[in-house]
């Protein structure tokens, strides 16, 4: 399990870097962070808000920068991400806790779907190379290049507004009571379908292209030739080649997941889906910096968690990584 422990070390370092960056970015900006924040908030500034901000950024606590940094860590380890400015005095953690399940559900399902679908299509395209299937590559390139949120706008315009197949926004029918009832669950699935399909469509191209390219190289290996020469059924030969060809896709997952999550947040905004993306937009338009920073940390931790899962899958698939020494 050397791979896992090494990757775990990387994730710990990344988390520390992210937390440190989160602390220092406000302090690197010119002037007193609290005063400049207040200067930017056009509307009501109560003394409570100022006190909350001063506590948040450790100003006026008569400790140096290092002391403030340690204070920040102590707060963080107690699960305290500060107080939201836009919905004062709700803690940032409460807001995030309300939004996180929606995002994890949507992005988790969409990412797994997209990975499975993309890998399967990639195998087929590689196996039938030279046929008309190669023509989907340039099309896929377009979907890979186009921003997620633009695809989302198109999806809303076409499938929700024009054709009326899907609801335009939000996560469930607000006339229903949340709970484990049939209509509620059906409504949640109905509302999640179009955002999820958008994320799948936007992210599937990367998996298809990676899988196809690696698969073409793998099919040149001698063992694939032997498998074919032995007269094994075609599906068996493909599975032998695909099992090795999938490894770069799995290790590429760590690169892709950050992009997919970022893209998914923007997709949520277009669909007014009440996930992290929605409160992110709220934080940006209200200049709610504590919420913004809290979201950054939570997304980072979520991405690191997804990476760790991908590492376990990789170790499971590739026996070489399980060898000691």
């Amino acid at each position, binding site marked *: 399990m050397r791979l896992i422990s090494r990757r775990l070390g990387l994730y710990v370092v990344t988390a520390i870097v992210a937390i440190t960056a989160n602390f220092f970015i406000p302090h690197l900006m010119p002037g007193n962070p609290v005063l400049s924040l207040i200067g930017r908030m056009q509307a009501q500034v109560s003394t409570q808000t100022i006190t909350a901000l001063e506590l948040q950024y450790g100003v006026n606590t008569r400790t140096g920068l290092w002391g403030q940094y340690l204070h920040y860590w102590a707060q963080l380890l107690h699960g305290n991400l500060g107080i939201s400015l836009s919905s004062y005095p709700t803690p940032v953690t409460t807001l995030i806790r309300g939004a996180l399940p929606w995002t994890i559900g949507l992005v988790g399902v969409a990412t797994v779907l997209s990975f499975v679908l993309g890998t399967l299509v990639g195998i087929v395209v590689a196996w039938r190379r*030279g046929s008309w299937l190669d023509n989907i590559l340039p099309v896929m390139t377009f979907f890979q290049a186009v921003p997620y949120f633009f695809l989302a706008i198109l999806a809303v315009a076409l499938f929700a507004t024009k054709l009326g197949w899907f609801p335009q926004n939000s996560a469930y029918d607000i006339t229903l009571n949340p709970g484990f009832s049939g209509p509620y669950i059906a409504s949640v699935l109905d509302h999640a379908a179009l955002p999820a399909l958008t994320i799948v469509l936007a992210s599937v*191209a990367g998996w298809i292209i990676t899988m196809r390219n690696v698969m073409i190289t793998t099919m040149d290996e001698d063992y*694939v030739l032997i498998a074919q020469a032995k007269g094994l059924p075609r599906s068996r030969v493909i599975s032998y080649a695909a099992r090795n060809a999938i490894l770069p896709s799995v290790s590429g997952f760590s690169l892709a997941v950050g992009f997919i999550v*970022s893209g998914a947040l923007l997709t949520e905004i*277009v669909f007014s889906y009440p996930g992290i993306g929605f409160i992110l*937009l709220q934080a940006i338009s209200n200049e709610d910096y504590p919420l913004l920073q809290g979201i*950054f940390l939570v997304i980072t931790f979520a991405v690191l968690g997804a990476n760790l899962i991908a590492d376990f899958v990789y170790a499971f698939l590739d026996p070489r990584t399980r060898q000691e020494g």
Partner: protein
Amino acid sequence: MAIPVGTTPVSPDATAPAPGVTGKRRMRMLRLPRSPKIMIGLGLAIFFVLLAVIGPYVAPYDPSASLSTTKGTPLPPSGAHWLGTTQVQQDVLSQLLVGGRSTILVSLIAGAVATVLAVLFGVTAGYFGGWVDDLLSMLANVFLVMPALPLLIVIFGFLSKSASPNDLLIGLVISITGWAFGARVLRAQTLSMRTWDYIESARLIGERSWRIMTFEILPNLIPVVATSFLFTVIYGVGTFAALSFLGVISVAHWSWGTMLYWAQSAQAAQQVHIEWWWFLPAGLALGLFGTSLALLNFGIDEFINPRLRAAGLTGRQARRAGMPRHPRLGLTPVIASAGRNGSGTSQDRSGQDGSGSGESLMVGGPR
């Protein structure tokens, strides 16, 4: 947004023209395959760069000016406004033309700076190895797994309100998050080249490290550097558009992302009569610019990995090259294998091929 996981592994003999190749042959090898994909990509890329240069001069109206105060709804395309107007009667075509410059400039700056950083860190880490490698690789990996967009949102959230939006600054900040992938690929390549004979001999005769890195190693990495540049430009386009769309970068600064921000905040896609002219041009422009770079990248990929080149041939080209029409089994033939002169038969087809693919095909064995 582009997911840069698609680069193929590079075999060392494909990146480097083998010593002893004659000048003429070398030129032919360096030429990118002229497949339709690459020609379309190149044409589109040139078109967009031209647009960025002349766009603001040919824009018919001021993109921010309200041209009429009487109407409160966006107008569809007409003779006066080729791409219609926004809710406050701004000309969409003018916004597209003016916004193109900022979008393309920011992404090119981000791509260029990130590529320089990638070369600097990647080649240094690969060449020196040891603790330098450990440190730089760790740094690159941290930037790879940390989600870039949320970090940029935090940075710009604090930065952009105090400073006025400036294309150079935006490009620089985006490049901070975009160099790590290229650095990792370049490091792996440099690592495999370190022990090559001519690098060893350069070291033995006492060439300085910086000289070996810049004059012996770097020229062989140019295809990889080019790929890395294209990917970071695509990344820059997507990231800048996303930041503008979120409104983190001042929404008064015209770019294609900003246009989508305004269209979305007016719910242009949710109206009963969909105001497609408002969001479609900017989104398509973003997508096509990214596509053009990705198509160019296909060319470089096929240049690096000859197997992909054979796999990308059309049926007619494949028959001409003497390949089976549907190669089911392994054995994707290597075509115009770079660095392997003298194996297989060479057919010069330039001038006699209607499809315009004038590359010389060399069909040899797979290995």
